[in-house]
């Protein structure tokens, strides 16, 4: 399935790598250099999934997550975190993030986690639709 994914990271090389890797999976991926830029784009169009780096200039990953939650309850958020700051990511999950990805050199974990999250979102949409129908 093709999903709309927004990625925010202040590190261009990493951002590029993630975008390219996810684009290969036919996802529609947009890259942002900061949380603020990502939030501005969300004003126009709400994506299916958002990948946010924890540590960025301007809004941090947590702040961006909070702002996203204020706009949409449905958008799936995955946090990107460096090795050694896992505790913060776990904390973020308590605030509504779906999962976190430790940024490893080969980014091998990105695709599986994203795919699993999308499946999860889909299942939830289907359940919601079924529920809506049942309600009507």
């Amino acid at each position, binding site marked *: 399935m093709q999903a709309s994914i927004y990625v925010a990271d202040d590190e261009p*090389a*990493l951002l590029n*790598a993630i975008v390219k890797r996810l684009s290969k999976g036919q996802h529609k991926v947009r890259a942002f250099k900061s949380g603020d830029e990502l939030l501005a784009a969300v004003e126009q169009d709400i994506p299916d999934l958002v990948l946010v780096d924890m540590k960025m200039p301007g809004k941090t990953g947590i702040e961006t997550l909070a702002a996203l939650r204020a706009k949409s309850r449905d958008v799936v958020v995955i946090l990107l975190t460096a*090795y050694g700051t896992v505790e913060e990511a776990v904390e973020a999950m308590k605030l509504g993030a779906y999962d976190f990805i430790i940024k490893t*050199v080969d*980014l091998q974990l990105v695709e599986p986690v994203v795919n699993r999250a999308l499946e999860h979102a889909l299942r939830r949409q289907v359940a919601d639709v079924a529920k809506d129908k049942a309600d009507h």
Partner: protein
Amino acid sequence: MYKRIAGLFNNLPILHKLLLISTIPLVSLILASVLIYIKVQNISHDEERLNNTYLIQEATAQYMKLMVDMETGFRGYVLTEDARDFTPYQNALKNLREIEHNLEKRLSGDQQQKLKDAEVIVNRFVTEKEELVRDIQAGRKSLAIQYIKEGRGRVLMSDFRDWMAQLEKFEQQSASDEFAQMSLDRTSVLLAILGGGLFTFGLMIGALFLIARSIAIPLANLSKAVGASTGELCPVIPVLDRKDEIGGLTRVMREMSHQVREHLDHVVRSEASLRILNQELAASESRYRGLVDHAPIGIFMTKGMQLTFSNRHNQVLAGLDPDKPIDPVTLRARIHSEDLDRVTSDFSRAVAAGRQCEMIFRFVHADGGVLTILSRRVPISGFDSPAPIYVGFNIDITALHTLQLRLSRTEKLATLGQVAAGIAHELRNPLVGIGSTASLLLDDFEPSDPRRAEVDVILQETKRLDRIVNQIVDYAKPRGLALDRFVLSDLINDVIKVLSGQLEAKHIKIRASLSAVDDHLYADRDQIKQVLINVIDNAIDASPMDGSVIEITANELFHHEQPGITMRIRDAGKGIPPEVLPRIFEPFFTSGKRHGTGLGMAICKNIIESHHGDIHLTSEVGTGTTVSIWMPLSQDTQLVKG
């Protein structure tokens, strides 16, 4: 009456009593003497009268004889008519007159009257003779012869003799009376002597009795009262109601006894309070001694430079038997040879100046153990001593000293770690950039593309760099402990599983003997696991590929008086050279391990120390290395290490 007299007598002063008492027999003696004198006078009077009677008798006899002489003389004259023969008559007459005169004087009234009668006879006797003499001279001798023949003179003499007999009879009676009187007087003298003596004796007895009653008996009673109360140190003295010295004495003694009793009571009270004070003092001293003896610091005293006292702990600090007496020489010998001169000179300077001093030195024990001691010596005043008295305190600061060293090392490492972590963070992002890009690139190549291997090298090296960076971050990150109780043998089994691949590859066996100990540890399981993985991984690395054995043992062991477990991981590897051994725990120190970062052992040390444990290595080249890890059984305080 008697009592009144006795009372009056008792009230007299003793001197007056004695004078009075001695006067009584004296007076009676004088009286007796007077009486005897009178009696003796009577006797002498009687004697005199008796004598007089004798004299009278004698005189009358003489008188009679003279009359005879006169008669005889007259007759002779008558016969011879010679005038010379008349001289005896004349002499006798003359004597007769003298005696007559004498008798007149001696005789009393009645007798004198009788004497006159005798004189009449005598005068007739004489007158007749003288008339006859004149007749003879006138030549009428016949008359005289007639006279003689008739014996007229003899008749007169006979008359006189009758008179004399009467007088004699009277005088005899008188003498007899005198004798009777004298006898009576003698008897009365004897009676006076005897009676006076007895009376005086009685009076003296009475006087002595009075003295005894008045002086001696009260004194004896007093002494009995004082002596009788053996049980009581100070008896009650009975006061005599008298005004003399004895009464005064009893009052004084009673007052004295009262005062003595009061003083005794005071002394007893003082003794009691002294006893209490002594007890308190003893208790205080015992407390003080207990305090000093059991104080966990060394306490000692010196007189000048000379050690005079050392408490138990000070002996212990010096590594000496606290139960043995202090030996200043042995104690001094325990001071580290490098410190001894400095300690001596510093202290002697302080003693000379009379000021306190503080120094740090080391005690070396017989077993080679070294204790670092902070010693403070303070002069104390209040002692009468020519040399100043110092009280000294020795505190074992070995742990503090070690901690300080460790802390400074830790601070150094922490600073290093923070710098390294900052660099690592900065490095990570570009590393991830390189790696992820290389990874993407790798995906773009066909599997047969020869450039693929080169890109793979980029990726692998990036991964290695990433691992180093991650370890630096791991080393430097704040280490909170997630404490839990777990079984050590289970953990070791987990570690063996993790490392099973490496173990099998080198045919190495692990022999763990932990059964003897209660191997429950209270620690952060993951962190201890990390340590064990690291240490055993190193052991595997050092072991030859010949199927050697890595031995793991765990024993209960007290360390710094704290219960804990010591784990020993011993390999039979090549060993570590002695010059390298001290640097093993330094960060980034590597002994040329194939994939080492030089941080493994440093991280292990961090973890163990954050558990208040201890890790050290012993190694012998060619024989193997033993890593010893001591962990306390409990974690009283959580130390968060940066």
